[in-house]
């Protein structure tokens, strides 16, 4: 068996699900409560995401969890027409969101016209349930 071929956790429809770790559990627990949590460094103030054991800016281990406003701007996007797994319904939009606190996360933009998405569009988090897991996705804001 290859050392890089992997079979992810999926829901009944075959869509992949994240597998939380001890490190990331607070983030996913936050999503389940409707809160978008991100690590914040007590020494330099940098937000760190995805979760890490140390601050990637100053190597401090004094990382705590902080609630994000969940509001941000689209930093980049791609409209996917050929999915990695047939279970994904195309087209769908993958976005990088720049959150108000200056950190970034990868997610999906929901309920949008794929031809009208633009870098800089304002968005806000929207918690979506997939087979019991709550995933942080985004919708346009202010429309």
């Amino acid at each position, binding site marked *: *068996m*290859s*050392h*890089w*071929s*992997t*079979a*992810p956790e999926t829901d009944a429809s075959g*869509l*992949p*699900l*994240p*597998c*939380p*770790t001890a490190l*990331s559990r607070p983030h996913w627990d936050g999503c389940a409560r409707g809160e978008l949590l991100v690590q914040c460094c007590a020494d330099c103030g940098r937000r760190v*995401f*995805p979760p890490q054991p140390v601050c990637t800016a100053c190597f401090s281990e004094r990382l705590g969890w902080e609630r994000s406003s969940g509001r941000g701007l689209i*930093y*980049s*996007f*791609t*409209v*996917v*027409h*050929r*999915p*990695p*797994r047939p279970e*994904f319904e195309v087209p*769908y939009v*993958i976005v*990088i969101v720049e959150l108000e606190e200056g950190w*970034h*996360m*990868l*997610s*999906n933009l929901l309920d949008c016209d794929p031809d009208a998405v633009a*870098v800089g569009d304002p968005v806000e988090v929207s918690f979506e349930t*997939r087979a019991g*897991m709550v*995933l942080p*996705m985004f919708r346009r804001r202010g429309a």
Partner: protein
Amino acid sequence: MARQALHDVAIVATANTRQARRLDGETDTALVLAVMRELLARSGLRPADIDGVNVVAPVGGIHPRQAAHWLGPRPRWCGTEYMGIAAVLEAAAAIATGQATTVLLATAQAGAYGERGATAPWTRPSYEFTECFGLYTAAEFALCARRHMTLYGTRHESMATVAATIRNNGHRHPGAASYGRAPLTPDDVAASRMVASPFRLLDCCITSEGGGGLLLTTAERARELPVTPVYLLGAGTDRRGLAYTRAPLWEECGDIGARAAARSFAQAGLRPADIDVCEFYDPFSFEIIRQFEAFGFCAPGEGGDFVLDGRIAIDGEFPVATNGGLLAFSHAGTLQMLQKVIAACEQLTGAAPPALRVPEARVALASNGGSGALFCDVMILGSERP
């Protein structure tokens, strides 16, 4: 130029099996053995001359120490890098530090792909913060290309020009998986179906199967062999964490490879203008534009215009991916990374097919990786001993 240990190492043979979308009935073991035999035949060396080995088949699972055993008791050094330029650099370091005198590198892939399944297996991440959102290789690199378009006004026309140029090279290379296909125009690329915007089907690399490898030894020893050696002039790596696990930010990965190129040029005592052949890694058309900027051939934001007007064609100022690259030659496991070094050697020894030969090619730059991959390694090779 300061003397570098790297300068005492030479590539004395390269070899490729047939490359194809699928090689039905083949195994990666059979392909690797064919490559090993061809390397020995071309270099005039015997199995007992090989004292260092890095042979891998990541999908099927050949371990370097297993392949070393096939060569008998003499190999005492085994590489651990599975990536092309990094593996060549690791082998050169083993030679330069006296751990081995002659190292054989080979890799192959067969039987990995289903009928039309076309996502390379190592880029199907099971990563916690990306996979659930439908991220995969093409989408990851597309996010980088979109950012460049936003920052600099780069148009898809430039990407389509890159894709058509490189694919047409491969269509004319008898060893390429896409050999014999009809010529393409940038309009054909723009008309192909959308995969992950802004990338269309023909902006994206193929998947294929095949084997390949090369043989390194000391520059001294190379002179005694019946071969045309290629010398290592400079090399460098640039890595920024684990790919496919987080949002690729342009600030972190847009110029990836810049540190690798700077080290390579410094070791070689050369500048971008001195490069005759650009065997840049081409998983997606946009990456060529990005690398011309990151490596210092043009300023940030100028790459889109830089690739137009025939500059990157075989008879242009900076011919790119002269064998057809990942877009048309082959993309088989990890072999496509080594293919960049092999293609450079073929140009520098005059072994490239006549229709694709760059006249008076003396210096070539090979690269591996890319923005979405969060790594980019560079190697500069030359036909004259530094």
